[in-house]
């Protein structure tokens, strides 16, 4: 049957999500937040999910809605600080011990996710050595310098925002919209991409930034470029 990964709705794309699922959400600094997919996930309402995203508190990402609704048992992030001195939804839950936090240096964060998609269960990195974030991690010297062993992160579901997508699941990104999207798509069992525009024709190979092999569903949601 001719492959066609385009679906009519975000809910069709995501399908059922089990409690305890590990969900990755792309986006950085306002670029590439998969917000329509996150809104849909909120409606689906799985409990005790682990959220893997750059930030647990970015005001432009609907991640905070998932946190506020109490769906999230744990976050794996590089940032979990709300703006200003008031406490964000995440910080309130975290202060009260109601949500678990794993804070990861951003380079180790993205490389651990890439590793998860690339069949690399663990790797050594100099980043984070000697810091609280890597306390207790295995340390080994290479070239006279200590490195810490970091392990891969994999997930059940990746929610990604892209620019265009085709029937084969190929996706292009606009400028810095890509950020964690590629790595997360490779690291999850099921990947859904919300795109501005779904294409009727196959994307030219030189425009493909996320090959369709990593994508299960593409849903067109419009929006400005």
């Amino acid at each position, binding site marked *: 049957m001719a492959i066609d990964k385009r679906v009519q709705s975000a809910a069709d794309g995501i399908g059922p999500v089990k409690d305890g699922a590990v969900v990755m959400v792309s986006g950085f600094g306002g670029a590439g937040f998969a917000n329509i997919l996150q809104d849909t996930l909120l409606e689906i309402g799985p409990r005790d999910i682990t959220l893997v995203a750059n930030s647990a508190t970015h005001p432009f990402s609907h991640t905070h809605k998932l946190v506020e609704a109490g769906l999230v048992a744990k976050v794996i992030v590089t*940032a979990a600080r709300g703006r200003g001195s008031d406490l964000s939804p995440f910080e309130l839950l975290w202060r009260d011990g109601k949500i678990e*936090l794993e804070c990861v240096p*951003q380079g180790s964060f993205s490389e651990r996710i890439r590793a998860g998609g690339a069949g690399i269960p663990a790797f050594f990195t100099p980043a984070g050595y*000697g810091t609280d974030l890597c306390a207790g991690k295995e340390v080994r010297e290479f070239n006279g310098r200590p490195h810490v062993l970091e392990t891969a992160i994999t997930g059940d579901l990746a929610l990604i925002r892209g620019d265009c997508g085709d029937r084969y699941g190929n996706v292009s990104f606009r*400028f810095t*919209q890509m950020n964690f999207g590629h790595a997360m798509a490779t690291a999850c069992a099921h990947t859904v991409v919300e795109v501005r525009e779904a294409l009727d024709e196959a994307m030219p190979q030189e425009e493909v930034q996320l090959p369709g092999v990593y994508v299960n569903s593409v849903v067109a949601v419009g929006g400005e470029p």
Partner: protein
Amino acid sequence: MSVLSRNQMAWRAAQDLPDGGVVNLGLGMPVLVSNYMPADRDIFLQSENGILGVGPEAEDGYEDRNLVDAGSRRITLRAGASIVDSASSFAMIRGGHIDVTILGAFEVAVNGDLANWDSRVPDKGPLVGGAMDLAAGAKSTWTLMQYNTRDGAPRLRHACSLPLTAPGCVKRVYTDIAVVEVRVGGFVATEIIPTISAEDLRARTGAPIAIAGDCRPLVAPMIEG
């Protein structure tokens, strides 16, 4: 002459950037450095969300929310710029392809230890971002900060009291009253503002600090703002 303003500090740091170099500027004050790049040098600014060749901030009406830097500023690209995903961007950083990173700092220790990510505000969540990877990966790590805290406590210290970003990484410190190198033997002031004596400087430093034999006056042009 009074102490340097934030913009003057940024100007001063900019003067030392290598021609043809690749430079990553941290959030906050370091980003101001981009406003004072020497006209005779061709420098590529890297941003850890995936940009090599950050240009000026976008003018009103020309912003693209998918073209942002690591500080979420809506920016432009310079000629020769390119964009990669986050994992590739940190491969660039960790792999030693960034000549200089200029980071903000809370504290710098006499052995080059850097503390710049966690000031221990009660109940506020952590935000590490790419600081640990940049500090561990760049060929040179410089910091840009006030010489003392608002309470007058020294930021240049025997040892950091706040959680480390990376051990032994800082090579040079630009401040409002002095430029200080972190050498094998400890802190060495290479420039001091004319209104401060060596004795004053020592009194404001939390560890022994030598005055370079060729120590010069720290001066900067008048800059508005």
